[in-house]
């Protein structure tokens, strides 16, 4: 017999007491009674169909709400609580593998929520079956057979739950890993971010149930199936990301390739909604912007950078790649994507003889702006390195956020307020020619800024290296 995952077993011991197992269905039954009382009130006179539709909605909405507000919280806290309770090192010292730890924690920490999810799914599924059997409501509303709606609902909701819980656990683990103890603030931020994204996903899930087909890479696809398939794929990526993060925590050697691969996938997925040359630009922009995520979550680590530089000096490519930060690898991949997109834009301008000179200029300007955007992101990432090397290394992110607010918000607003529109490209990538000073190409300003930040990093790196404490002291008296 295969043994139970030890982490899952620990959570089963802790989470599934008889009292809790009874409490969950009681609460759900109370909610069903409430819906029943509402459906049968005399004024509405909705009767059976209204009741069954209400139950189906209760099931799917209840599922989503407990995933977002409870499951996300529990999964984010799973490792954070271990770190705060000083048990995380014991887990890391075990001989359990990264995959066992990943799924044991992901499903174990939220096992009680999954129990609630299962009950809500049952409520929703049974209601849909009766609604279809007695009133034909499902096929009338969704224009699809019952089995298809049931599969879409079950697979979509489970994928949605896995995506939310795995993402929030991944964000929280990455964020707390750089500190000695877990912080509730990180958990809350992780949960808020994922809730916002998940609401957008869930809304699209609801909208697409009755909407027109989705056009993706020129194919007309059934909207709901497309959303379900996308949820499944993104949930799988989230679990893979969590597994990779777990490997890092368990000191297993990793190559920094998973995030760039995901960024490329996300770029291609998003590009599917765009037409023509815009698709290439969308893909490049998504890959480029994706670099902010690991940079902000992991934040540049001076020790890791020192290892990287040491390996590069020794010409040890394998070690250098192992210590290369994810954002840097992603940024190199983004460079390739941006160059391809810029070349495509320029090529499109040249090969269109029927196009007017204005359009050719416009495409060339767009290519320049894309390169400028890349350089702005380069500057931002370098600024984060610069902040991390400062004395207040732990406050690096807050410092960096302040700089971003000034560079992207305050400074352009001041320029706009005094009417210096042609100077806007100094601070932001500008897409509209009328707002740009074409005498100076838009790439010049971010390039100069990136070089300036690079010089600042060099200066701070030297000071940082020279200022490191060297404990060569004589032994101090011991207590005995």
């Amino acid at each position, binding site marked *: 017999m295969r043994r139970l995952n030890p982490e899952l077993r620990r959570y089963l011991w802790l989470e599934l007491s008889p009292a809790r197992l009874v409490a969950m269905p009681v609460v759900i039954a109370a909610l069903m009674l409430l819906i029943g009382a509402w459906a049968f009130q005399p004024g509405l006179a909705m009767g059976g169909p209204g009741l069954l539709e209400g139950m189906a909605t209760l099931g799917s909405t209840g599922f989503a709400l407990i995933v977002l507000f409870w499951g996300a919280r529990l999964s984010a806290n799973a490792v954070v609580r271990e770190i705060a309770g000083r048990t995380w*090192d014991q887990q890391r010292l075990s001989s359990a593998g990264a995959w066992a730890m990943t799924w044991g924690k992901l499903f174990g920490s939220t096992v009680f929520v999954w129990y609630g999810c299962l009950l809500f799914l049952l409520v929703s599924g049974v209601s849909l079956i009766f609604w279809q059997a007695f009133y034909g409501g499902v096929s009338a509303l969704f224009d699809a057979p019952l089995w298809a709606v049931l599969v879409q609902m079950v697979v979509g909701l489970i994928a949605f739950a896995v995506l939310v819980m795995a993402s929030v656990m991944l964000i929280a683990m990455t964020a707390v890993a750089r500190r000695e103890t877990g912080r509730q603030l990180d958990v809350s931020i992780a949960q808020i971010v994922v809730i916002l994204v998940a609401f957008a996903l869930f809304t699209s899930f609801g909208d697409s149930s009755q909407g027109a087909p989705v056009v993706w890479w020129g194919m007309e696809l059934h909207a709901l199936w497309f959303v379900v398939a996308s949820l499944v794929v993104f949930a799988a990526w989230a679990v893979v990301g969590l597994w990779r993060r777990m490997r890092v925590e368990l*000191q297993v050697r990793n190559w920094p390739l998973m995030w760039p691969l995901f960024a490329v996938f996300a770029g291609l997925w998003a590009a599917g909604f765009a037409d023509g040359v815009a698709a290439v630009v969308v893909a490049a922009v998504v890959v480029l912007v994706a670099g902010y995520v690991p940079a902000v979550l992991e934040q540049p680590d001076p020790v890791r950078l020192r*290892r990287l530089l040491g390996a590069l000096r020794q010409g040890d490519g394998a070690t250098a790649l192992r210590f290369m930060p994810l954002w840097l690898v992603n940024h190199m991949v983004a460079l390739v994507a941006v160059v391809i997109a810029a070349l495509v834009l320029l090529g499109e301008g040249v090969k269109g003889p029927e196009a007017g000179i204005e359009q050719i200029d416009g495409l060339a300007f767009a290519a320049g702006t894309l390169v400028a955007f890349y350089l702005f992101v380069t500057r931002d990432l370098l600024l984060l390195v610069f902040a991390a090397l400062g004395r207040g290394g732990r406050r690096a992110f807050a410092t960096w956020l302040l700089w971003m607010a000034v560079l992207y918000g305050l400074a352009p607003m001041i320029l706009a307020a005094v009417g210096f529109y042609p100077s806007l490209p100094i601070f932001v990538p500008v897409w509209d020619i009328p707002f740009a000073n074409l005498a100076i190409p838009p790439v010049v300003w971010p390039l100069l800024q990136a070089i300036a930040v690079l010089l600042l990093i060099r200066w701070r790196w030297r000071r940082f290296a020279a200022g490191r404490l060297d404990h060569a002291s004589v032994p101090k008296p011991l207590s005995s």
Partner: protein
Amino acid sequence: MDEATPVAAAITVENLIFDYPTLRALHGVSFAVERCSVTALVGPNGAGKTTLLRCMAALDTPFAGRVLIEGKDAHEDPRASHRRLGYLSDFFGLYDELTVTRCLRHAAAMHGLQGADERLAVERVIGQLDLGDLASRPAGELSRGQRQRLAIAQAIVHQPAIVLLDEPASGLDPLARHKLSDLLLGLRDEGMTLIVSSHILAELEDYSSHVLVMDGGRLVEHRAIAGGGETVTLALELATPCADLATRLAAIAGVEDVVAEELVAVFRAPSGAAFRHDLLKTLIGGDVPVAGLAERRLGLRDIYREVARSDEGQP
């Protein structure tokens, strides 16, 4: 297996360097730990003891250097090395909501034990650590001494070959410390190799066979504590002062590290009665006013004072 690595060593640390962002915590530390030994890892607060232990346990990755656990690089395959290691952190790392038995079952299962193996391992360690009366109590309700026993039980439930203990006696009363001493000696007798970190020397003296002295992230001494080695420390007592005693002792084959004062000289020499007999014969034959010769058992505090004195440049 690395040919240069002696397989006899339970742990070999080679040129270990560990950096924090603004501090180098370990400066090229190298040593080897004998099997079935109890090594006291001592040094002042901030000496690098915990960092060294965490690197040895493959919890933290060093900037450079390597740690070999029974000949295998701990950082190449940390999960494999953890099967051979037990680690007691200074915070114990217990799940307060779980009972003692469940804490131990969980720890055993996390090391791959299952079914009957898991049950037997838990029963064995409960007996070994005298936890039978506490088996059904939640860990959060235990006293500090009881929690410490449970934490040690967790660390050894999978019968590791090597156990690393970080400040195990911190906060314990004298009776509990005495029991801890007996327990560690028992583990050593079962064939385990132990490294015990502490900045309190008195608790280590009873059971340590070797000492590692750390300071400022550097290893300043690593030696066997008296007894059982090939050389011993001897103290020669004189009836009257002898001006060239140090020179005369140093000239005798086998004698080294001579420290001579007016009426006493301390030095390292081969162990065994035959050497002492020959030594006395030589000295008395050379008219040295010998009043006595005895083996001096150096305690940890003596070794530490000796190290501190030599670091300050005193003879």
